Every structure is written in structure tokens, then in C-alpha cells.
């Protein structure tokens, strides 16, 4: 059993598997999960049941068909579902590249559980939310330092939302200059996030996508060809999702500026460059950071998230309102932005996320942020050096001998040799308590996977993860069926995908499922 010794770090893992019912299957007529207080007798005496004034045609005839489940069973149900989920706190979550799955400090959860954070209404008098406003204000100052840009808003709900907001500002800017109709193209790169294209298109822009050259870098010649008087702007990441830093990025921004466009920087991949290189030096006019990635706030199964969106001085009047300012005595909302795009979200932004990111930055300081970046890059290149030795895996593209915070790899060789796909390997990884994510579509890199170790994991944890990859690569040769039928020790087995694209069979709610079963 040489293998077992070689793979000594692999765990004999099995995820919790409850075969938990759908909540509706737990319903027992008459059970109650929680009781609602009755109104005080005086209220009842005055207004009766309250229904008299409601127009009869607006009264709901049948109660909604919600399940009736006693409290402990509801708790148990959702606890079991939680156990059937693999949060970053439990695994070594480095296989979810581009997502920066770092540690989300528990103390920050304690802080946001204060009633002084969670029981604040957005329309409270400013004098009663000075602490909250101070956090918005200071975060603005922090991000000016981190990026070199001049003014930040925290209204955006997430990264994609910030891209849409950047596109809105770019559109408004050209409109104000009388070029709104003419400038209708946004340029991005294929290794920038899909939303850099999609969320800009929502604002009516045509999208021009720059592909990479043979070295893996976005092709400068292609950019020159794409530029024209129609160019409204550029929205790109750097490093791109390959983990390769584009050293010519300033030439990109300069060329776009020369034709009158604006440059937006998607900094979703900022974790390896904090304090090293900034939007300002690269010539960007707008940028945003994901608070839920780089700044330590949890991903919550897909939100709530948050973004810090910053601009250079000339674009400040276009930001969504309100901003938070300080008059020397008190913090206040500033709605006085003459060219504002208006709003992108109700109220002021995802405050719980902003507060956690504030606490995270205050736990790090400037030296800490830089150490985050340096260790994230160290970890990434350590993994790169090890994966390069796994037979069947490799990192495409010669550019970027070293990579920044992540690497997009390929299982192409292994797949050709064994017929095992990146999807199969991802599911086999679940048997060892890991995630492995392929990559965003389209798969420019064949059979891709993207690893981003962040700064949060110890070397021995990185080794454990690597060992699982190596084990599965060997297993794919030895026993490909085992990999192709994975997972074996996860929550469920291979799912029937056939209903999902068939309108006759898909069921997006339980009620639809029941109808279609008939």
C-alpha cells in the first residue's frame, strides 16, 4: 500500500449526508414554528380585526400553502442542510479561484451582531448614526490610499454591480460631453470576469473582447485595432484570471485615453498586489474592490457582498448619491453631486459587509495589507511549483514565469490520456472534503481549473490539498471509473441533469415539481 504512505495527508473523509426531506414534506397540519403576539386589547377594541377597511377583492382567500412545522424540526432541517454544505471555515478553500476564499474573522461577526449595527434604520437622523457614517467616511479614506484614486462610494452590492455602476458613470460622462450616442463601445479582455462584458452591456454598450496573444497576455495590437472614436472605455482585470500580470497595462490605459475613452479597473484580483501596484500608477480612472473577496468578509453562499468603487477627481460628481462627508464636527450625507448617475441601490450600501471590511482593514494596517499580498503570492507560486510536477496538469502560457495570486491550470493532458475531465476531478475532490472549481465560460483554457490560495492557509494545508490533486491524477490512470463516477463520499451522487434545460421537466419551486410529477 505504497500509495497510502505517499498520500499520508489524505483524510478518510465523509461529508454529512442526511437525505434531508424538502421542507414541505415535513409539514404536519396544525404545527407551529413560532407564535405571533396578539395586539394589545386596546388596539383590538379600537380597530377590531383590522379587515373591515380592506376591500374584499384584496383579501387573500386561501392562506399561502406554507409548511406547518414545529420549531425544533425547522431548526434541525436547516442545520442538516448546513451540514450538507462545505463552508470555507471547514475546508481548505483554495480551489475556488477568482473568488479569494480567505479567512473571515469571527470577531467581525461579533461586531456586526451589535444592535448598534443591525437595528439601525437607513432614514434615522444623522445625529443618531454618527458611528455608521464615520465608518463610511474612513473607508473612503482607506481606499484612496489603497488605490491612489480620489473618491469612493460603497453603495454597490457586489463586484458585478460595481461594473454596471462604472459603465453607468462612463456613459453619463460621455453624455455630458455630448458624445453619449457616439461612444457606444466598451473594450474588455477574455480573461476578465464575464460580468466585465455583461454588466457593461446592460448599459447599452457594444462589447469588444480582446483575446490574448500566444504568451497569454492581452494582445496590445488587438487593442489598437479595437480603438476608435466609438470607444467609451475599457473595463479589465489585472492580473487577469490566469494570474498573469499584464506589464503593459499602462500602454492599454494610455491608448484608450488617447481616443477619449475612460479606463475602469476590475480589482477582483487585487489580493496579490495590495500596496504593490495601484490603479493610479496604471492610469485607471475608475476601479473597484470586492469587499467579500480581498477584504475578508464572508461570501454567504453568494451574498451579501460589497464593493468599494473609486474614481479620479473629474469623475467624482458622477458617483451615486449620497457620499459621506465630514464638516469638522459631524459626518453627514452629501447629495450634492451635479452629474450623479442617481442611485444603484436603495439607501446607502450593504452596511454589515462594509463594517466587517472596516474591521478587517483595521486589524491589518498598511503593513498587514502588504503582507497579505506577499503571502498570497508566495502561496500561489508554491502551489504553481508543485502542480507543475503533477503529471497531467500544467499551467498554460509562457508569460508570467511567476504568477500573482492565482493560476488557471489545465487537465488537458490528463483528460486526453484517461478520459477523465476537470468536472470529474472536481467531484472526486469532494470525496476528500475539498472544492475544485473549473473556471468561467468560455473554456479558453481546455479542461481548466483555477487555484487561488490566498494568505489564509498554512503550508501544511496547501500540501494536503496538493496531495489530493496528485492522488486523483494518479487514480485517473489507475481507475478512471472511480473518478468518473465520483463523488462517492459527498452528500449526493451524480445528479440527473436532464430536467434543467427542459421546460416540461424543470421545476424551480416545489409546487412546480408537484404539478409536473402528475
Amino acid at each position: 500500500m505504497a500509495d497510502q504512505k505517499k498520500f499520508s495527508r489524505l483524510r478518510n473523509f465523509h461529508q454529512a449526508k442526511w437525505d434531508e426531506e424538502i421542507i414541505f414534506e415535513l409539514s404536519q397540519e396544525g404545527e407551529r414554528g413560532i407564535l405571533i403576539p396578539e395586539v394589545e386589547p386596546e388596539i383590538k377594541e379600537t380597530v377590531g380585526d383590522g379587515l373591515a377597511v380592506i376591500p374584499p377583492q384584496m383579501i387573500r382567500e386561501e392562506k399561502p400553502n406554507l409548511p406547518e412545522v414545529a420549531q425544533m424540526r425547522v431548526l434541525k432541517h436547516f442545520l442538516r442542510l448546513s451540514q450538507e454544505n462545505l463552508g470555507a471555515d471547514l475546508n481548505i478553500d483554495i480551489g475556488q479561484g477568482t473568488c479569494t476564499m480567505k479567512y473571515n474573522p469571527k470577531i467581525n461577526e461579533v461586531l456586526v451582531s451589535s444592535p448598534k449595527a443591525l437595528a439601525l434604520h437607513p432614514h434615522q437622523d444623522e445625529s443618531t448614526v454618527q458611528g455608521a457614517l464615520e465608518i463610511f467616511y474612513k473607508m473612503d479614506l482607506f481606499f484612496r490610499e489603497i488605490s491612489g484614486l480620489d473618491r469612493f462610494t460603497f453603495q454597490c452590492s457586489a463586484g458585478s454591480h460595481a461594473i454596471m455602476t462604472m459603465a453607468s458613470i462612463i456613459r453619463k460622462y460621455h453624455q455630458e460631453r455630448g458624445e453619449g450616442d457616439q461612444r457606444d463601445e466598451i473594450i474588455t479582455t477574455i480573461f476578465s470576469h464575464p460580468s466585465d462584458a455583461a454588466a457593461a452591456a446592460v448599459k447599452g454598450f457594444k462589447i469588444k473582447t480582446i483575446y490574448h496573444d500566444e504568451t497569454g497576455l492581452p494582445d496590445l495590437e488587438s487593442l489598437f485595432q479595437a480603438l476608435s472614436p466609438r470607444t467609451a472605455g475599457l473595463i479589465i482585470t489585472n492580473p487577469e484570471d490566469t494570474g498573469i500580470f499584464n506589464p503593459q497595462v499602462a500602454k492599454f490605459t494610455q491608448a484608450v485615453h488617447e481616443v477619449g475613452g475612460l479606463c475602469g479597473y476590475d480589482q477582483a484580483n487585487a489580493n496579490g498586489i495590495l500596496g504593490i501596484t495601484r490603479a493610479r500608477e496604471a492610469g485607471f480612472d475608475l476601479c473597484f474592490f470586492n469587499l467579500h473577496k480581498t477584504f475578508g468578509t464572508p461570501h454567504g453562499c453568494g451574498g451579501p457582498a460589497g464593493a468599494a468603487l473609486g474614481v479620479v477627481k473629474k469623475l467624482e460628481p458622477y458617483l451615486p448619491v449620497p457620499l459621506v462627508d465630514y464638516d469638522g464636527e459631524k459626518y453627514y450625507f452629501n447629495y450634492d453631486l451635479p452629474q450623479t448617475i442617481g442611485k444603484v441601490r436603495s439607501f446607502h450600501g450593504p452596511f454589515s459587509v462594509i463594517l466587517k471590511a472596516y474591521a478587517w482593514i483595521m486589524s491589518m494596517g498598511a503593513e498587514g495589507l502588504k503582507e497579505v499580498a506577499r503571502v498570497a503570492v508566495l502561496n500561489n507560486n508554491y502551489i504553481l511549483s508543485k502542480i507543475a510536477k503533477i503529471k497531467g496538469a500544467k499551467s498554460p502560457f509562457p508569460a508570467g514565469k511567476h504568477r500573482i495570486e492565482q493560476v488557471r491550470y489545465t487537465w488537458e493532458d490528463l483528460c486526453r490520456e484517461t478520459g477523465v475531465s476537470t468536472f470529474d476531478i472536481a467531484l472526486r475532490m469532494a470525496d476528500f472534503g475539498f472544492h475544485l472549481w473549473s473556471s468561467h465560460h468560455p473554456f479558453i483554457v481546455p479542461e481548466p481549473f483555477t487555484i487561488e490560495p490566498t494568505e489564509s492557509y498554512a503550508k501544511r494545508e496547501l500540501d494536503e490539498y496538493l496531495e489530493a490533486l496528485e492522488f486523483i491524477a494518479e487514480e485517473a490512470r489507475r481507475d478512471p471509473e472511480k473518478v468518473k463516477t465520483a463523488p462517492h463520499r459527498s452528500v449526493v451522487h451524480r445528479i440527473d441533469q436532464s430536467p434543467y434545460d427542459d421546460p416540461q421537466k424543470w421545476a424551480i419551486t416545489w409546487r412546480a415539481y408537484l404539478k409536473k410529477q402528475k
Partner: protein
Amino acid sequence: MPKKKPFIHPYIPNSVPHVQREMLTAIGVESIDDLYEDIPPELRFQGEMKLPPPFLSEQDLKRHVMSLLQKNISCEEYACFLGGGSAYHYVPAIVDEIVHRSEFLTAYAGEPYEDKGRFQALFEYQSLMGELLDFDVVNVPTYDWSQAASTAIRMAGRITKRPKVVLAGPIAPDRLAVIRNYCQPVMEVALSGYDPTTGLLALEELQSQLSSDVAAVYFENPSYFGTIDHRGQEIADLAHAQGALCVVGVDPLSLGLLKPPSQYGADIACGDIQPLGNHMYFGGALGGFIATRDEEKFVMEYPSRLFGISRTAVEGEWGFGDVAYSRTSFDKREKGKEFVGTAAALYGIAAAVFLSLLGPQGLKELSQHILQKAQFTAQKLAEIPGVKICFSAPHFKEFVVDFKETGKTVAEINQALLRQKIFGGKDLSGEFPELSGCALFCVTEMITLEQIKKLRQALSEIVG
């Protein structure tokens, strides 16, 4: 010079120098700086980020942040009569327990195998909302009601291939601003007013604005003013007669008692799940729902994730996955429907727990409780000389109070209320010039009889 102490941070295990050395050797470089060789000198940041000195110990950090939060006054301390899109509702303990579970809180985007739990929880969220709304399709939550309304409108534009939406009746200024930005330049946004007597959307005005280029009529019921419109079917019929869709925004907590929009002709319903088990967080905890019938022409226009149920290779197991993934920007970049990304999933799980706990009876009782309390409060305030309730239409949890005759501005009144530890209603003076001197009050189950009496007493003194 003393040797610099290594920076070892509890969140960064590999900040330990000898571990770093071991890893650098494995990589084959001398220092971490060598790994940045691709970043040319002219792009290097030469300065230092001027950030405040950090609180490296957890206890110092806690003291610092708590001292900032201490400057806030919460709705646990003062009586809150504010609404308008975020409201102070009760959050059951079990909801907090579930959303703080590490497994949910720190998960993101695993496969429906090792992350089956979040897929099922969100499928159940969709299903529970489907019952509440009496619709067969509900999305994984988007950012907020404003985004949900914006997307519903853009969906209607694509379905009907028409370029215009009519927003009818009272609507929150925040939401209007979001919709305007999101629609521009693809769809034209036209406004249709409200009847100054009833507070309901002005039907004749709406009718006059309908034409063959209108993709959708959007209205809210209950409205921003809290008013309940009984003419939903009539409005939907008007829209449909012109080939437009009917999109209705709704407070989900009203649906224990009130008819859901699907039952009076709406094609798309939308709204916010904050009231369903989510703390306010200064207006930061929002989640938008969009719901429709289960028709391909609707389903294929959603930008959001839609989780579907299936079976697996092993009998008895439920499986989950993405329905019609090819519509999304994850699959098709700019060719997908709008865009999708991280939004408000955990708030959706909170809403699922909340609705599972309340059940049909709990929801009805809560709707009714709010309805009774809001009616009572409105009656009590109307007893004060010079204070009137605007609009004759019935209301749910919000209503507009007219202080014009008192000679005091809402700002003055609210400052005086603040001194008595009351957050008075939202001043509408700036938002609706014709409602200068009026305020939007909101009453939830968190307000006590004592607080209502205190409000009445305080207002009597302030305006008396």
C-alpha cells in the same frame, strides 16, 4: 539598528519567516520580491499606504469598533416609526442561528454535491416564496427590490420587444433613481401620477399613457405611501389590452392577508425580503425577489440563478442544479441576460427559515397584527388637532401623516420627537413637493402600545 521584528499575523499562517524560506526554496527564488518580477518599476507603488495603525489584538480591535458603534442609537433604544423600504421587524432566534452557521456563512460557489445544502436551502426559499406569491418561478435573490423591479422591467422589455415602461402611482425616490439608471439608455421610463385624494395611482392618467410601445406597467401594492389598491385586476387588464405586461412590487409581509399580485393579473411580481427575517443593518440588508409563471418565455429572460430540483443516481436522494444556465452571463458573457453575480443568497436562506417558522397561520397573524397596529396608530394620530392622515385608501403598515396645518415642519417635529427618543416618520417634503409638511410613518409588530401612546402624546405637545 535593532532587527525588525517579523510581522506575524494570526490571519496569515505563512507569515512565519522559516516557513516562508522553505516555500521560497521550493519555488526556487530568493525572496518574495522576485515573484513580482512581472510588475515593471514604473507601475510599482513607491510610497506607503497611509492607513491608521492597526489593532493587531482582537480585544483592541473589538474595543475600537465597539466605541464607534457606541455613537449610534439603535431602534432597540428609540421607538422607530420609519419605513419606506426597510423596516424594523422581529427576527426569530433560529434565523440568526442558521445564518451564522459557518457552513452557510463562509460558503460560496461549490458544486451541488458538496454544497448541496445551499442549493436545497435556496430551492426551498424559491418554493416558499412561490407559495407566498402564488407563482411557480422565483429567482435566487438579487440585490434589492430596486434591482428586482429594474430587472423585471428589462425582462418585460425583452419579452414584449417594446422600449418603454410606465411607473404608475407612488414609488420610493430611491427605487425610482435605481430604475432610471438601470433602464437608461435601453428603455424609456415614463411616470404616471397618483390621485391626491385616495393616494392610489391615477387610473385615467395611466390609461392615457398606454400605447403599443409600452412593455410594462409597474406599480406597487401596497404603495410607497402604504395604500392598498383594490383595482389590481383593472390595472392589469388595461396593460394587457395594450399588449403590455403588468409588473407589481409588493411587501411580502402583507401577503398573509392581502391577495398576491398573481391573483389580480400581474405577470411579474417583485419586492424585498428584508422583512422576512433580515435585520435592517442601516438599510444594508436587502434582497430582491422576482417571480413569474412557469412559462419558457419568462424563465428564459431571468438573469438570476434559478435552482431546480432533480434526482440522482441513488434512489431517495434529491439533487439540485441550475435551470437554463445558458441564459446567464456566466455562460454567455455579454450575450447572456443582463448579468449575474454574487447578490444576497444568505438573506434568501434567512427568508426560507423565517417562512418555514411562520407557516401559513403565523404569516396571516403577523400581517394582521401589523395591519391592526398601523390602523390604530393612524387613528390615534388623527385625533391630534391639526394632524391629518393623507389619502382615503386603506393602508397596510405605512401611512402618510399631514402636519401642514400645525404650522410646524416635519424636520422640526422630528427633532422634537428625537428628544423624546422617537424616530418620527420619514419627511416627504423634499421627495414630493406637493406633500411638503407630510411624513411617511411605518408601524410594525415591534412597536408597542406604550410607544404609540408616547408618540401621540409627544406629537400633541409638539404641535399643540
